[in-house]
């Protein structure tokens, strides 16, 4: 079975390379047989990667601990759920997951009926990617390597077990969604390069890849969200985002991907920003590779530590190759990309999109710069200098707020040229409301400038979006005579792309509210107390009633503290912060946070340590508004699904927007 899995990798490498050749011959000689053969090769590569995947899963599930990977990440008493998740717990398996997704994405592209001319090229580019991953898995990180010192026939009784920190539902969902996102950006990249290769100047590649891009973006959003949630509930430091290099590695392509999603609209509508769009998707794709390089090479210290080894070099080489190939194509075909129109006014939707793009890419660059600064400073000054959260916060706060302000302004500003008059008309009430909100909050005791600005902007953006939807509903109600609720629902459903975008924006604003509250007004305390005593934090008092031990499963014991939470003297909840001890890792307990979560704030308690005398140390936090970060995140995902839902209303693009707006202006 191990041999079969391994052989599939080697075969997969050759089949992928063959597929590229077949496609190229098929296209240049206009030979349908070769084109069909290329398609077949894509499918074969996917089947082969699946064989390897199934083989590794089989070993994980059946517990053959002579396979090093199985030995490292599982043990006899590991629940099936985590045996499955162990698939991507390590280097080899996570790369295999990448390959698995990539090869099946390639099949979808290769067999797509929509794009006859572009398909062979796009498929070839994707196959080239697959070939790299087949190569890496076959020759650098063989997932089927046996444990050191193994001789044929020897049985290894049990494995080392999965790190307790990884035994969290987050382990199942966070890597999977992040990879679905990461890999997904390869498809729009492949089509963009195809458009350049085939000298296709139109925006067909954008139309074809719109769904891919949004899907990849949404998965990456969800991956980051689940990663943050996992960090929050698991690591016991009261936070959800630490500007760790690996977090940044998935945040940076998310930012450039967001920029791309917006700027392609300008190309669709106005035939502008062509060079920019191709560049953006190339950057996004290269950043997904670069992020993987950062994680796998060990050049930066991170919580997601994979060991070093030769893998990093190959990843870097591949990344650089793809980067230069993309740059070459863009420079070589720049004439093709000359734009048909230019900007007509500062006050226009296209220039507001340009602004949004500059800020998103600027923020991406700032995060990128901060992340790789240790490498730059070492190269230039000979000493590794690390910048941490203070740098990232100081840059991302103003740029982030600018983005949220634009989020309120952009959707309502007219294409081509807006007049000052309709700007005032559109925004006066939201702007007045935003200032009012800031003033009220100021008198309620919120004095931090960033927090005030953030809440004011949040109000402004929510208000403009809701007013826009209200106006649309009213127009529809008047034109069609439908009742208000029916008009409202039909308005949303008939142009899902647009209103899905609004829903996503609303979700993001809620996330902003959560981030602002938890960053600006969090409290924390660390205190050692005995049973019967209590510790106080903010308006809360936590009484420590008991410290005891309980058996969770045959291999898991928990030490837990029974605590009563009261607010201003009144009982609110009972919480139970725990430390869970796994039989496979007796020295590494897993903290389970005692959490009392409300719309206003989270009370978050970690049981840190205890001694024989009953001195028990707790770390407690009050994190305001955190729940809105999660709620906003799920609204964002809902908005994406809403926008992508197929059928009538899903394709309505900017033209529809214009006619609707005309109707609106006519009223």
């Amino acid at each position, binding site marked *: 079975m191990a041999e079969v899995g391994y052989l599939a990798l080697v075969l997969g490498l050759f089949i992928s390379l063959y597929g590229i050749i077949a496609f190229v011959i098929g296209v240049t000689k206009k030979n349908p047989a070769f084109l069909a053969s290329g398609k077949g090769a894509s499918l074969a590569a996917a089947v082969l990667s699946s064989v390897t995947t199934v083989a590794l899963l089989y070993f994980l599930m059946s517990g053959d601990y002579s396979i090093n990977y199985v030995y490292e990440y599982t043990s006899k008493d590991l629940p099936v759920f985590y045996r499955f998740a162990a698939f991507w717990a390590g280097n080899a398996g996570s790369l295999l997951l990448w390959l698995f997704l990539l090869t099946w994405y390639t099949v979808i592209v290769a067999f797509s009926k929509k794009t006859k001319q572009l398909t062979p090229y796009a498929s070839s580019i994707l196959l080239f990617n697959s070939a790299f991953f087949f190569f890496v898995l076959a020759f650098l990180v063989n997932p089927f390597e046996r444990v050191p010192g193994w001789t044929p026939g020897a049985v290894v009784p049990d494995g080392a077990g999965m790190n307790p920190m990884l035994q969290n539902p987050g382990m199942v969902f966070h890597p999977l969604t992040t990879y679905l996102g990461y890999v997904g950006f390869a498809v729009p990249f492949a089509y963009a390069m195809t458009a350049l290769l085939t000298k296709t100047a139109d925006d067909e590649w954008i139309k074809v890849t719109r769904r891919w891009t949004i899907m990849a973006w949404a998965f990456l959003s969800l991956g980051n969200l689940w990663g943050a949630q996992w960090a929050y509930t698991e690591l016991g430091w009261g936070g959800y985002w630490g500007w760790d290099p690996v977090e940044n590695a998935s945040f940076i392509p998310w930012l450039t991907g967001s920029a791309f999603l917006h700027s392609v609209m300008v190309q669709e509508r106005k035939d502008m920003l062509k060079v920019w769009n191709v560049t953006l998707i190339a950057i996004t794709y290269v950043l997904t590779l670069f992020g993987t390089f950062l994680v796998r090479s060990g050049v930066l210290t991170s919580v997601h530590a994979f060991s070093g080894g030769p893998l990093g070099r190959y990843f870097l080489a591949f990344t650089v190759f793809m980067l230069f190939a993309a740059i070459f194509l863009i420079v070589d075909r720049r004439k093709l990309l000359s734009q048909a129109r230019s900007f007509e006014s500062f006050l226009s939707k296209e220039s507001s999109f340009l602004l949004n793009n500059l800020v998103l890419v600027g923020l991406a660059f700032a995060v990128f710069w901060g992340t790789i*600064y240790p490498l730059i400073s070492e190269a230039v000054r000979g000493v590794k*200098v690390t910048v941490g959260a203070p740098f990232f916060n100081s840059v991302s706060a103003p740029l982030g707020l600018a983005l949220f302000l634009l989020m309120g302004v952009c959707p309502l500003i007219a294409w081509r040229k807006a007049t000052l008059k309709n700007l005032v008309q559109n925004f006066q009430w939201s702007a007045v409301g935003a200032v009012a909100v800031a003033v009220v909050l100021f008198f309620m005791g919120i004095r931090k400038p960033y927090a005030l600005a953030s809440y004011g902007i949040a109000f402004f953006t929510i208000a403009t979006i809701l007013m826009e939807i209200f106006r649309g509903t009213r127009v529809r109600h008047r034109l069609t005579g439908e009742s208000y609720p029916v008009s409202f629902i039909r308005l949303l459903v008939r142009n899902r792309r647009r209103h899905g975008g609004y829903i996503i924006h609303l979700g993001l604003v809620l996330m902003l509210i959560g981030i602002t509250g938890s960053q600006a007004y969090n409290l924390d305390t660390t205190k050692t107390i005995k049973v019967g005593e209590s510790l106080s934090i903010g308006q809360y008092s936590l009484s420590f009633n008991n410290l005891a031990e309980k058996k969770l499963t045959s291999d898991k014991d928990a030490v837990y503290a029974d605590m009563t939470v009261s607010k201003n003297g009144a009982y609110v909840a009972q919480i139970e912060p725990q430390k869970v001890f796994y039989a496979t890792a007796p020295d*590494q307990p897993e903290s389970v946070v005692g959490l009392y979560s409300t719309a206003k704030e989270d009370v978050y308690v970690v049981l840190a340590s205890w001694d024989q005398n009953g001195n028990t140390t707790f770390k407690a936090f009050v994190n305001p508004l955190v729940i809105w970060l999660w709620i906003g995140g799920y609204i964002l995902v809902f908005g994406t699904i809403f926008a992508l839902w197929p059928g009538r209303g899903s394709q309505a693009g900017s033209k529809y927007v214009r006619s609707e707006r005309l109707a609106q202006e006519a009223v």
Partner: protein
Amino acid sequence: MKGKNVKITAGVLVIVAAIAYLIISGMSSATPAYALTVQQALAGQGTADKYYRIEANIDAAHAQWNGDKTPVELKFDLYDPSNPEKKLTVIYNDVKPDNFSEATQAVVQGKFNPDGTFHADQLLLKCPSKYEAENTTSNNDGPVTKFLKSLGLKS
């Protein structure tokens, strides 16, 4: 048309300059952490006013935890892998991370105390044994040899 493009270009440049300014001012206001080895630290190369980052091996087994102090205190030694005898004492006023006992390597960020000990405000631990095993087989093996070995076809 041309005039408008100049205006837009100027606008773009202004924004780019603003972002560049934010990055540069962020770099100078945020405390950057300078990398130091334990050996350099013990030789007194760290000055009291600067913020440092030390990556080294950690002696987690002999760490001292004092939860009764305010603030709480975790005291442990760091050493360079090349020179395990020379140890730097680190004081960290926070609780033990869950993976502390298993840790073999640590990254600390902080400042030096007047007595030469290091006062860390950040502690990051690495447990290579759990995340990814160090390759214990000979590193000189090429991939093919490794593969043959893994199949038991070569010893």
